[in-house]
């Protein structure tokens, strides 16, 4: 108790190592609670980006399902033109890629740079597989004369999946860059972006392809 009291007193009265800070306010005399944001892994700004991206995609998915209420039959017919199997394979490709990226973070934190690069390369390659399958779906839709304006379903489908595919492309570039930099903080941040891309897809896939 005495030790605790003296610790609190010294913290409050000195205000830090210099001891010349102004007297603290009564609220500052309470023992410091750890800030939960201090425990956030990776860069704080990457979390701001992740939350903003989730909000954008989340709003898009809500708008998609709200519009579907007005024309469920048209949406179901339009959905039948999509590559469901390819989208399912893409889900496995992204979650596996995310796993490799998470292992790469562990490797770079252990100082194993070569292993980190060996893990990030297939992670990025699986991202390329995702893009190839997605491009094949777009090509088949175009060949069937289906465009952005054919039906509201396709407007949302192309907007949501196209915006997501752009993030996959950006993520591949980011993984390559952080693999070259080989700094733990950079790899952690690059992997966090990649996991966000993964997270968006696991929410987007059932809404656009299955329901």
């Amino acid at each position: 108790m005495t030790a605790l009291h003296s610790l609190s007193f010294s913290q409050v009265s000195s205000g830090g190592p210099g001891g010349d800070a102004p007297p603290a306010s009564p609220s500052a005399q309470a023992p410091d609670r750890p800030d939960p944001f201090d425990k956030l892994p990776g860069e704080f700004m990457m979390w701001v980006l992740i939350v903003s991206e989730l909000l954008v995609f989340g709003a898009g998915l809500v708008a998609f399902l709200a519009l579907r209420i007005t024309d469920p039959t048209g949406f179901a017919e339009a959905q039948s033109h999509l590559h469901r199997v390819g989208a399912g394979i893409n889900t496995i490709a992204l979650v596996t890629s995310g796993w490799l990226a998470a292992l790469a973070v562990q490797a770079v934190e252990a100082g194993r740079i070569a292993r980190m690069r060996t893990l990030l390369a297939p992670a990025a390659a699986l991202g390329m597989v995702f893009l190839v399958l997605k491009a094949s779906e777009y090509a088949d839709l175009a060949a069937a004369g289906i465009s952005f304006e054919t039906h509201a379903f396709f407007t949302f489908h192309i907007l949501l999946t196209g915006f997501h595919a752009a993030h996959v492309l950006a993520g591949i570039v980011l993984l390559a860059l952080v693999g070259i930099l080989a700094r733990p903080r950079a790899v952690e941040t690059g992997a966090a972006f990649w996991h966000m891309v993964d997270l968006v897809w696991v929410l987007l896939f059932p809404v656009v392809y299955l329901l």
Partner: protein
Amino acid sequence: MTVTRAWIILVGLSALSTLVAASGLDGRWLAAAVLPLAGLKGHVILNYYLQLALAPEIARGFSLVLGLFIALLIGLSILPSA
């Protein structure tokens, strides 16, 4: 939980979603089965790939918002078949 175990769970949940979708379920039942599985996948990615399990207070906040979002999606999916 290790990231490898998280990956195995994600692959398992994805396979389960595919099975449910291929089972012939449609309308409200498909939404009620598939969307919670998507929410679970999101939970695993947030906690074990993005390591939010290290920040439990923030993880709880994300889980709450994700749960509400999935509930909203289920509600919107059920409306056309109601």
